[in-house]
């Protein structure tokens, strides 16, 4: 018996070592930060992958990088597996590389694990600042215990007690959020304009992510405002949206429109294979995926939006302001800076979106972010941020650095 145990222990140890090896070796920078023993190997491939992901990064460093102090910035998101997660990651990584900071990413988790995870992560490394997608008082308490300033990105709390709770902390620098409510509202509106009266809606389980809840609220409010639009069915099971489509279709042949809190190829495929793609049904939903263009072209999708990760970049700027010279951009932290989505209603817009938003160079490049930082641009103000948020449109992006993007 013991011999058997030894055997499988050995086997598992090997397995374990193999994984740890990949963990420390093959992987992004943060691991390097924590255990020096593997730093060398990771530094090597850090350079390589940053090279690949941003063309203009090196000269950034040359221009301003060297003398800047090195901050360690923590970014929190539920899961980096989805598209948005990836965008967040590369955008923040881009800025941190450009400004000689070090990015640490972690999965925030939910409930008390969220609190626990934050405690652990903050214990791990001397974190200088935290950007979190979705946040609450409990975690704010932890952050202040560890004396870490926090900027909230996407999904600002709506409940009064929560808001007063978070903002009562001195280290809370305020929040930047997308107008998720409006996004939900607009989705329905555009379906309505497209003549759909009988619709379905697929959301996400309440409480999984604030932004999705807000979108759902927007959807519901529009429905209330327009009683002649009927919600045939709705569903909120995580990851099952694509399986619901056939059900909806089978039980309600009269469907005219479908709205989704988050578009993905799975949904498009389901719509395709259910033969709903013949134009009888119009769709609208947040998030852009590879098939979106095709569906705009065929006039099936009437509305889409994306580009949230810009919001995270602005939050980064706010945090950086505080870190580098203590500037607080937002004086009244109870109201977030609200930024609209990049809305898409035509195929052309989609093409632009793919060209200028979904590429290696983020919606704001390092230079443009500089404008938002008091240290480099002393006359930047809260109002400045507001107006900056105002004109966040595709057009604006193209004007700003369209030329930098080579077709």
């Amino acid at each position, binding site marked *: 018996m013991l011999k058997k145990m030894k055997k499988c222990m050995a086997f598992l140890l090997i397995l374990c070592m193999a994984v*740890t090896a990949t963990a420390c070796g093959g992987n992004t920078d943060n691991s390097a930060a924590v255990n020096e023993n593997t730093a060398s190997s990771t530094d090597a491939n850090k350079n390589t992958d940053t090279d690949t992901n941003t063309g203009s990064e090196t000269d950034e460093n040359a221009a301003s990088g060297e003398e800047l102090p090195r901050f360690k910035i923590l970014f929190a998101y539920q899961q980096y597996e989805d598209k948005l997660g990836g965008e967040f990651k590369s955008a923040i990584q881009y800025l941190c590389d450009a400004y000689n900071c070090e990015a640490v990413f972690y999965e925030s988790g939910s409930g008390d694990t969220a609190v626990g995870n934050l405690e652990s992560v903050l*214990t791990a490394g001397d974190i200088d600042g935290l950007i979190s997608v979705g946040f609450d008082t409990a975690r704010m308490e932890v952050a202040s215990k560890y004396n870490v300033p926090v900027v909230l990105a996407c999904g600002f709390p709506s409940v009064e007690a929560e808001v007063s709770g978070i903002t009562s902390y001195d280290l809370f620098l305020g929040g930047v959020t997308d107008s998720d409510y409006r996004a939900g509202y607009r989705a329905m509106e555009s379906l309505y304009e497209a003549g759909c009266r009988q619709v379905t809606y697929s959301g996400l389980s309440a409480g999984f992510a604030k932004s999705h809840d807000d979108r759902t609220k927007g959807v519901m409010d529009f429905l209330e405002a327009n009683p002649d639009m009927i919600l045939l069915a709705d569903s909120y099971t995580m990851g099952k949206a694509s399986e619901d489509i056939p059900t909806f279709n089978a039980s309600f042949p009269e469907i005219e429109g479908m709205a989704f809190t988050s578009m993905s190829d799975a949904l498009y495929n389901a719509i395709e294979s259910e033969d709903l793609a013949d134009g009888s049904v119009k769709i609208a939903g947040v998030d852009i995926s590879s098939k979106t263009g095709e569906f705009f072209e065929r006039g099936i999708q009437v509305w889409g939006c994306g580009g949230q990760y810009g919001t995270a970049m602005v939050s980064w700027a706010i945090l950086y302001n505080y870190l580098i010279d203590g500037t607080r951009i937002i004086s009244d932290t109870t109201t977030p800076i609200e930024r609209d989505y990049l809305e898409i209603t035509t195929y052309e817009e989609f093409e632009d979106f793919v060209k200028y938003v979904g590429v290696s160079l983020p919606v704001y490049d390092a230079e443009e972010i500089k404008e938002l930082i008091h240290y480099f641009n002393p006359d930047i103000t809260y109002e400045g941020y507001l107006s900056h948020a105002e004109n966040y449109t595709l057009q604006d992006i193209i004007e700003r650095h369209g030329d930098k993007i080579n077709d």
Partner: protein
Amino acid sequence: MDNSAAITRESEENQRIQQDLDRKAKSKNLLNIIIPYIGLGFLFVFFIIVTQGKFISTINIENLITQSFSLTIIAIGASFVYAHGGTDFSIGATCGCAQLVCGLLIVSGYPLWIAIAACILVTILGASATAGIALGLGVPVFIGSMCVRTTFNGILQYVAESGEVVIDYKQYMFMNSTYLKVIILVVFLAVGYYLFNYTVFGKYNKAIGGNPVTAVQAGVKHKKLIFAAYVALGLCVGVAAVFTLFRTGKVTGTTGSGVEFNMMMAIALGGFPMRGGERSRLSAAIVGAVTITVLANGLQLWGLDPATINCVKGVLFVLIVALSYDRSDGKLIS
């Protein structure tokens, strides 16, 4: 040994053989005693190394206590249920609902103790429902609890949809004091240990796990006992729910999700026999609960890339089980 043995076995080398057989047996027993803790020990060493000692910094020890609190409490209750070979998948959902009720009561200005009482009541109801279904309707508890889970989850979602319930976090900070938690933890451990090892309740539960027919033939009111075990679990979950609420300060649609799996993992990791019976030890459940927390905490401290964390977690999980699971069933395990 009786004297007849002495007559036949007096020969020199038979004596010798007998002696070293006894020695072997002794060392084996010793091993069996320490084995359950090997996994945990391994983890501690492992994490202390990879985090250059951060892992055992005082602050992190405090974190470990607060983080392991809920799960440990639940594990204590769960060990009674698993001791008679039961299980319960509904506790996550009931835990969520309980917090919801508690939160709503607090928000609408009821005194704290009422809210807490209500919270615990809800979880007890949930557990009793599971037990009732299993005992009364003859539906296997595994799946019966699934139904309870779905239902309670629905209720939680139903209410949480209209907006999260947020309590005034700062007003109830005292509920987060580590001392309070330590005290409660100690009390529960003491009571749990007493009930599990020194009373009819614990012993009968283990007997039922060992062989229900024998237990019944020995005059055990098995239905009553099983029900009681579930109530105990409910109570523990309730307490855990209360403190979780004050730790997170709000209730959303996903509150409490995954608690049941954590509980199951704790039971598994501690080497608690899945079918219950004589070999169930309370310590096993607790070791399991602590191990889970240590895993989560340590991996975060280690600061791996999110993608890697779960993979390492899985490997370590298997590794620990391999190290410390009681294998005396041999082939017969299922």
